[in-house]
């Protein structure tokens, strides 16, 4: 006799361990794919999976097999017009003849392609940045939600009982059920009083009236004071927290000295700030400002990919930022964040101007300002000017970094602050 078992509710991620092992084993290749993807993607497009391609030869599990050649005879189905002794030209594709090349017509059979899930993608992105675990979980969490009141319901838990509503319902019900009987009772009592006034003592009529009153009273008493039917509960629904909007300024030096590696580091720095803001704000605007001797608001593609040469005047970017803020982002409506990446080059006479701009025009309106100086040979005047700003404003943070693992510390304060709130 057969036995049937319903296993559908059982654990389903049996292969999770093996999948993880697979990813660990090919981490190098997969990370490369992630890196490439970050290169190509827009900053705001960081939350999605990625297709990973691994060359088949890297992933194969070798076994002893016959190669092409030698004397091979095989049987095939579907002969149409061959007769014994026919000679056919050997197909060029692979020397095995016959049908085996049919399988090659599919999608690039030399590569092993698979999808990295969104979580795995972000995880690998974070791994490069060496984020602390707490921050990682914070960033990967789904949006913050808040429970809010929304009227009343008939079902719920005892702590949510609304007493006024419930008792009001109980009263209404008691009136509805008991009203007729009470009227009848009143009428009977009136009648009884009348009768008692006319003649004292007892008569069968009075007795029956008394019986009736007794019965009515009993019935009225039977109506419960409160019934589950009366209960009303406060209704609470989960609503995504109404969040303010934020604007993120990305400022990058694109003078000749910023090469591709530096730009790559800068991009990750911007992405990280974006991720943070995305978790805390409903709406985010990003403004890309690139500068050399003059500054310009550009789109993301131009920001990362077009090249310029020439000197560097940082204040031009700061002025532009200040202008954009006054024009488009009134500070009472917008939270303003700024991430600036540079290699530290600046025209010496310009640095005091930058300091001045930051202290008076920018920092008072900005939530957080993070500055990274990438691969500096030695600090120049800009660094020293910024240090003055740092001493004045807690919301200003700066760091010089050599590689991407050092990005996180410059944003650390930002995360810490939010965690305490």
């Amino acid at each position, binding site marked *: 006799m057969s*036995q049937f078992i319903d296993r559908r509710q059982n654990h389903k991620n049996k292969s999770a*361990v093996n999948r993880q092992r697979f990813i660990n084993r090919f981490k190098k290749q997969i990370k490369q794919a992630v890196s490439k993807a970050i290169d190509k993607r827009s900053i705001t497009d960081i939350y999605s999976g990625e297709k990973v391609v691994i060359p088949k030869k890297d992933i*194969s599990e*070798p076994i002893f097999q016959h190669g092409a050649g030698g004397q091979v005879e*095989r049987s095939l189905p579907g002969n149409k017009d061959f007769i014994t002794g026919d000679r056919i030209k050997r197909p060029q594709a692979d020397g095995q003849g016959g049908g085996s090349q049919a*399988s090659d017509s599919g999608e690039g059979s030399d590569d092993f392609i698979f999808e990295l899930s969104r979580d795995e993608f972000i995880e690998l992105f974070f791994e490069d940045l060496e984020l602390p675990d707490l921050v990682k979980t914070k960033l990967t969490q789904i949006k913050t939600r808040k429970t809010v009141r929304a009227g009343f319901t008939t079902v719920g838990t005892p702590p949510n009982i609304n007493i006024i509503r419930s008792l009001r319902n109980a009263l209404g019900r008691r009136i509805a059920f008991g009203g007729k009987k009470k009227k009848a009772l009143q009428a009977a009592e009136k009648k009884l009083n009348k009768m008692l006034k006319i003649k004292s003592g007892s008569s069968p009529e009075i007795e029956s009236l008394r019986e009736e009153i007794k019965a009515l009273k009993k019935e009225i008493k039977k109506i419960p004071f409160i019934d589950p039917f009366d209960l009303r509960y406060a209704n609470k629904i989960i609503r995504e927290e109404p969040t303010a909007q934020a604007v993120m300024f990305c400022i990058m030096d694109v003078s000749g000295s910023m090469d591709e590696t530096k730009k790559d580091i800068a991009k990750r720095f911007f992405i990280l700030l974006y991720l943070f803001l995305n978790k805390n704000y409903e709406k985010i605007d990003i403004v890309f400002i690139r500068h050399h001797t003059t500054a310009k608001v550009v789109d993301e593609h131009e920001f990362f990919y077009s090249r310029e040469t020439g000197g560097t005047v940082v204040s031009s970017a700061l002025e532009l930022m200040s202008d954009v803020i006054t024009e488009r982002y009134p500070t009472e409506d917008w939270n303003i964040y700024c991430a600036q990446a540079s290699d530290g080059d600046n025209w010496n006479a310009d640095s005091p101007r930058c300091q001045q701009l930051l202290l008076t025009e920018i920092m008072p309106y900005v939530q957080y300002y993070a500055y990274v100086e990438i691969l500096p040979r030695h600090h120049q005047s800009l660094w020293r000017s910024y240090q003055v700003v740092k001493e004045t404003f807690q919301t200003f943070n700066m760091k010089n970094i050599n590689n991407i693992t050092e990005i996180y510390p410059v944003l650390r304060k930002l995360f810490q602050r939010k965690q305490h709130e």
Partner: protein
Amino acid sequence: MSNREPISKTSEWNFELLEKYDKAISHIANDFRLKTFPNQIEIITAEQMMDAFSNVGMPLGYSHWSFGKQFVNIEKNYKRGYMGLAYEIVINSNPCIAYLLEENTMTMQAMVLAHACYGHNSFFKNNYLFKTWTNPDSIIDYLVFSKQYIAQCEQKHGVEAVETFLDACHALMNYGVDRYKRPARLSLQEEKARQRAREDYLQSQVNELWRTIPNYRKNDSSNEQEQALSFPSEPQENLLYFIEKNAPLLESWQREIIRIVRKIAQYYYPQRQTKVMNEGWASYWHYTIINSLYDQGLVTDEFMLEFIQNHTNLVAQQSFDTQYFSGINPYTLGFGIYSDIKRICESPTDEDKQWFPELVTQHWLDAVHYAMEHFKDESFISQYLSPHLIRDLKLFTILDDDKNDYIEVSAIHDLDGYQHVRDILSSQYNIGDLEPNIQVFNVDVRGTRGLTLRYYQHQGKPLNDSANEVLKHFYYLWGFPITLEIVDNDDACLKTYHCPSQEPKKSESVKKEKD
């Protein structure tokens, strides 16, 4: 036709209906003398099916990245719609476990019940290879043991060490099989109890082989040397077994892991040898059983139409020149042969009488049972493939000799060709022909401890490029240099592979000469 009520009228299934169908099917199966293990039928979801599928169909197994790769691949193909999932997986165990996909319609569930739980199941129970080589009572226990053991090893020695070691074992997995010697039965308790003892004993044996202190009992040193010259005394085909028992530097946990890989390879060996017979048998019976249900009026016309469509897809054979051709469909071939046996028994033509004199006198049911029980693919085809079926499938053979710049059609479905087509097709299922014949030939016991493998080349077929990679794994397991000699039929050496490769040594000697 009887006027009985059909069991179900819609395509929705539920457990009650499944049980009714199972009862009806088992009744019919019994009439046809299908003897089976008890069935344990489990309904699973698509995700669970992918899990099971990527673990070579086993309900549990040790962790390894290659299963993850398999999973990722299946998941990708399934999500993109390149492939449907298997309707069922059936495991050769007692009770026989079958997984049914929840998405199947009622018709498919009934078909799968007949196919897996009565077709495959009876094959597992009665085919001589399975009877001799596998032990369905204890396989699940053994898998539990191996999973636990390997997890313990990972804890003790690190995931990476175990993984690398398993990689090496997997490379030689197909060479971990005894083809002639019957393996001992496995059981969980024995396995555990003996595993400790085995560790000590194995190590002592290995030590004995590699002892460097002269053996005092045998003072005759020439005798000893002679012995040393010829170790192993005969070429060994079970490479993993040889390594397990003789590799000088392996630790006992590593030997145990080799043993686990070996045992599992051995377990799958009969399945690899009976693909055509097994799938053919299951297909033949789902076809026969469902038709019998229909004849009894237990299923509706709609049910039958859906069933026939699925069955036809299952046993469709693509021609060699279509885009979808991917070899001979084992379902088609197997189903064709069993159906043909019945046809020959019931209404033989003159041709059949000449080719199958022993069949024409038999009852068809005896004949198909006999055919299922006593053969493997290779012998099954060479025994039963009839000219009739060769004509139906329009089989022909091609001879591809790398000495010529053309391919020759060596036989087609005509009177002169039948025998040749049958021989060639049969040899296509001979695992001995499909896998390069590689054996341990010699070990330099007293010298470098190097090991020599020999590939006995047949019909000039070379090894492909992965041989070098496999040798690296072999070297990793053995611990001392590996040489692979390719020899022809006259034992003349055609080519040698070395691991580690010998080029650097040459350059060293050149340097010395220069100096």
